């Protein structure tokens, strides 16, 4: 065995005897690496899952959808140099929940289902999503009834469950998807109607083709090409690149969010880690002044001494970051993954426990540690031994400046001591301010995320559209009088919702809500000639109130004045009175209903759901429940943010208090000898911490909102738009929590002053 050098032994002893003080170095290194590797792992895993599903399903590049079969589209497609596939797409309602059916060609090679049961051939059979089975208490092999748009009713046997790239969102919020190949459908029809020949069914089905999947390079110009060539009487609903589909946008924005999180949170922690290491090193060096002098007198080189002190922190930082490298990928993806699990259906795959990127993040931290310690130690170590040997006192105060500040002299002495300490130990002061600032801004952000979501929801569901039951229709006919005749129904507002393109500075795809001329549920005032617009859409197209916007509806371009931008959270798009389209018939697609009393909500929604022509009817309580379910996953995330924030504050405040305490044990003893009471001694230490906590916490409050917006804006999804709002109590909570942490740590150390032994501490100059 190689014999350890004396200096190596000294590293071990130093850490052993001062482990309490070094705890914060290990801890912050661990926190920083945990967060970084954890968030990175989360992103990589999520990306991995998506890549898995997209690749194995051969996702197409664009989708074209038509109202009914449109021959000219097919003619154009044949001329373009791309591969394409035709399929049939139609909605139906099963047990009061909408289901989209897709019928694909037998030899399909695009958008195949990701079969959960590995033995199944995804091109063959009838696939549904897992939640369709659980909701309807069905299992694989069961037979259920489907009403085809051709007026036929058939029985289908479920072959297996799937995940599908076009419907990754959980179907509790979106319609279910039913996926089958054409011959399965033909067989099912023939089983019921054996007198129809197979050829007849096939030609019949081909006239129902209404979707085209496109694959090829330069897809956006191809799409534009197609749109240009279409005649005016075309049946086009949309022609979109896959990445622009609403369902894909949601998940893509979550991917971007996961990626950007890598940079937002860990930066704060790395910064604080640097500061904590900086302060610990300078404290150590100061304490070791004499020893440095002795080492030099003994003939050690500067390099040897430097590497001796640096190695202490390398060991500590290394321990912490290795722990972080284990905790991070274990904990964070699990916590953040809850959100994805609740929002999306994703394949379960094994993740690597170790990735080379984790090691890089550890190395980066260690390099930072080396640089910080070299920079901090350098000036102390290059001093001549005689000066080092004079000890700690040699480095202290600059004379001139402080004695000129007469205002300082008028303060009570314990304040004077606190302020001088802050000035002298600037790196420590910054560490605490930045740490506490980080803590309070993270807390505000954590609270703000919930505030924002609930605020937007409450605004819409209680103030703007306070419906009790919401209904969507299958066919565009009015059911107003029928619904009104149900007991407990007070008001019915029927509306039509259409997908349209809206343009001002930019053009986007959103919704057009056509409102009844007289509304009783919808509470925002509107007139006959202008429109309301949701704030998210307004921002996206770049319009202000009084601007004129354009939209395409029913093969016509409309220009309309925006009267009001409304903070809608769920309903996105423009809202116009039917009076504006008075030449066209009013064909409602849904209705908002108010009941006379909340106790009727469930009964009414159940009754309406039974009606023919109704796709679904959902009470406000159910909607709320679904939303809470989604938010529940976000709460796990905000809770994590809050816990990390508080840990951050604990680390920096503990570090400050401990450093102060260690450095000033002798001062404490002297004050005790001079007869100061425990309160007085405690307060002279508290002043510094409390003062810095307050400054950090207050500045942090101002950073809270920008941080909230940064976190939430990359989390934008089409389900909800955020009305940024932070409740005053969130600020109060933040201040209370931060100051509470500070107070508790202070209290502990104030109690510790009691333990300082006067006689022992004052005996020597050490």
């Amino acid at each position, binding site marked *: 065995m190689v014999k350890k050098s004396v200096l190596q032994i000294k590293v071990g002893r130093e850490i052993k005897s001062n482990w309490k003080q070094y705890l914060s170095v290990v801890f912050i290194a661990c926190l920083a690496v945990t967060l970084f590797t954890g968030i990175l792992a989360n992103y990589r895993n999520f990306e991995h899952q998506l890549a898995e599903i997209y690749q194995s399903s051969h996702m197409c590049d664009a989708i074209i959808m038509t109202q009914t079969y449109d021959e000219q589209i097919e003619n154009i497609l044949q001329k373009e140099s791309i591969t394409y596939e035709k399929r049939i797409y139609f909605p139906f309602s099963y047990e009061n929940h909408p289901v989209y059916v897709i019928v694909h060609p037998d030899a399909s090679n695009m958008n195949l289902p990701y079969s959960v049961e590995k033995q199944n051939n995804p091109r063959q059979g009838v696939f549904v999503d897992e939640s369709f089975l659980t909701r309807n208490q069905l299992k694989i092999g069961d037979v259920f009834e489907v009403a085809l748009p051709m007026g036929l009713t058939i029985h289908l046997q479920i072959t297996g469950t799937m995940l599908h790239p076009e419907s990754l969102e959980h179907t509790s919020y979106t319609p279910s998807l039913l996926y089958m190949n054409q011959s399965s459908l033909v067989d099912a029809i023939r089983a019921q109607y054996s007198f129809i020949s197979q050829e007849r069914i096939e030609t019949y089905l081909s006239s129902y083709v209404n979707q085209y999947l496109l694959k090829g390079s330069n897809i956006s110009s191809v799409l534009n090409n197609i749109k240009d060539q279409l005649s005016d009487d075309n049946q086009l609903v949309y022609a979109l690149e896959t990445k622009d589909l609403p369902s894909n946008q949601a998940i893509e924005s979550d991917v971007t969010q996961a990626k950007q999180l890598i940079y937002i949170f860990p930066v704060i922690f790395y910064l604080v880690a640097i500061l904590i290491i900086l302060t610990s090193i300078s404290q150590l060096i100061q304490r070791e002044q004499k020893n440095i002098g002795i080492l030099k007198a003994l003939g050690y080189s500067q390099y040897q001494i430097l590497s001796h002190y640096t190695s202490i922190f390398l060991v500590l930082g290394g321990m912490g970051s290795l722990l972080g490298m284990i905790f991070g990928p274990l904990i964070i993806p699990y916590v953040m993954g809850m959100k994805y699990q609740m929002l999306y259906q994703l394949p379960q795959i094994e993740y690597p426990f170790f990735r080379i990127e984790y090691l890089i993040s550890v190395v980066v931290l260690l390099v930072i540690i080396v640089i910080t310690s070299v920079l901090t130690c350098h000036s102390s170590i290059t001093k001549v031994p005689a000066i080092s040997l004079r000890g*700690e*006192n*040699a*480095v*202290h*105060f600059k*004379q001139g400046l402080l*004695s000129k500040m007469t205002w300082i*002299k008028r303060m*009570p*002495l314990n304040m*004077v*001591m606190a302020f*001088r*300490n802050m000035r*002298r130990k600037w790196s420590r002061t910054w560490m605490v301010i930045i740490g506490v600032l980080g803590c309070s801004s993270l807390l505000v952000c954590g609270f703000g995320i919930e505030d924002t979501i609930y605020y937007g929801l409450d605004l819409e569901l209680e103030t703007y559209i306070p419906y009790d039951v919401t209904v969507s229709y299958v066919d565009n006919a009015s059911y107003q009088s029928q619904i009104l005749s149900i007991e407990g129904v007070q008001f019915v507002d029927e509306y039509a919702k259409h997908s349209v393109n809206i343009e001002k500075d930019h053009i986007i795809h959103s919704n057009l809500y056509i409102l009844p001329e007289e509304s009783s549920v919808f509470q925002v005032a509107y007139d006959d000639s202008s429109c309301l617009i949701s704030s998210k859409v307004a921002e996206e197209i770049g319009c202000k109130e009084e601007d004129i916007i354009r939209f395409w509806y029913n093969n016509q371009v409309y220009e309309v004045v925006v009267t009001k931008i409304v903070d809608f959270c769920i309903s996105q798009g423009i809202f116009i009175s039917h009076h504006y389209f008075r030449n066209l018939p009013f064909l409602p697609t849904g209705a908002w209903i108010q009941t006379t009393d909340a106790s009727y909500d469930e009964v009414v929604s159940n009754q309406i759901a039974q009606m023919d022509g109704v796709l679904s009817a959902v009470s406000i309580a159910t909607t709320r429940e679904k939303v809470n379910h989604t938010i529940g996953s976000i709460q796990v995330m905000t809770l994590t943010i809050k816990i990390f924030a508080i840990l951050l504050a604990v680390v920096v405040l503990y570090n400050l208090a401990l450093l102060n305490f260690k450095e000033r044990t*002798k*001062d404490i*003893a*002297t*004050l*005790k*000898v*001079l*007869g*100061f*009471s*425990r309160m007085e001694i405690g307060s002279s230490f508290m002043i510094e911490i409390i003062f810095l906590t307050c400054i950090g916490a207050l500045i942090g409050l101002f950073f809270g909102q920008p941080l909230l917006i940064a976190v939430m804006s990359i989390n934008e999804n089409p389900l909800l738009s955020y009305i940024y709002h932070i409740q005053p109590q969130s600020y109060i909570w933040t201040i209370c929590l931060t100051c509470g942490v500070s107070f508790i740590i202070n209290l502990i150390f104030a109690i510790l002053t009691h333990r300082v032994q*006067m*006689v022992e501490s*004052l*005996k*020597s*100059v050490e």
Partner: protein
Amino acid sequence: MPFIELKEITKVYGQKEIQIVALQQVSFALEKNELVVILGASGAGKSTLLNILGGMDYATSGSYKMNGKDITQLNEKKLAQFRRRQIGFVFQFYNLMPNLTALENVRLSIEHLKDVEDPKHTLEMVGLGHRMHNFPSHLSGGEQQRVSIARAIVKKPDLLLCDEPTGALDSQTGKHILRLLKSISETGKQCVVIVTHNASIAEVANRVIRFSDGKLVSNQINLHPKDIEEIEW
């Protein structure tokens, strides 16, 4: 009733196996307006005695009374008040606050106290009028020792305890400080106790107490103390 009365004070350091008896059955009495010198070899227990007199440490057994009040019975809080009001302590190793200036170090000991000396004046008395605004790190060892003395005498303590107050001083400054301490004891309200290795200082004292191995070996009253100018340093 004597001003200070010690009865059979014993101080034992350590527990069980390794016990060090620093003081053994020490009894004596002191009056106000006395200048007391305590002599003894290194490790004889002088600092230990001073710590007990100053209320910084508890005796293992025995009683210590000041003005008839039993100090050994005081609790932590009362003891702190006792130190603040009645005791002035000059440490063997100065113990100045590094982040307070000389003047502020002196002011530190009289915060919340009435009937005290002017801190600036006190510093001038110990010959540091010109270095009041310096931090301890910019003062020499002897200067730091004098700040420490100023800090102890500024509050006009009933009992002034000095552990080697002239250890770091040259004969000239040492005598100056000694004269100062002597004059304090002559006001008639204060008692000054000086611990030293320097036997010549004993010649100016009213009372000389000798220690050896934690035991009091002699307690003499010096009826004719020498004048400070006459002693050899």
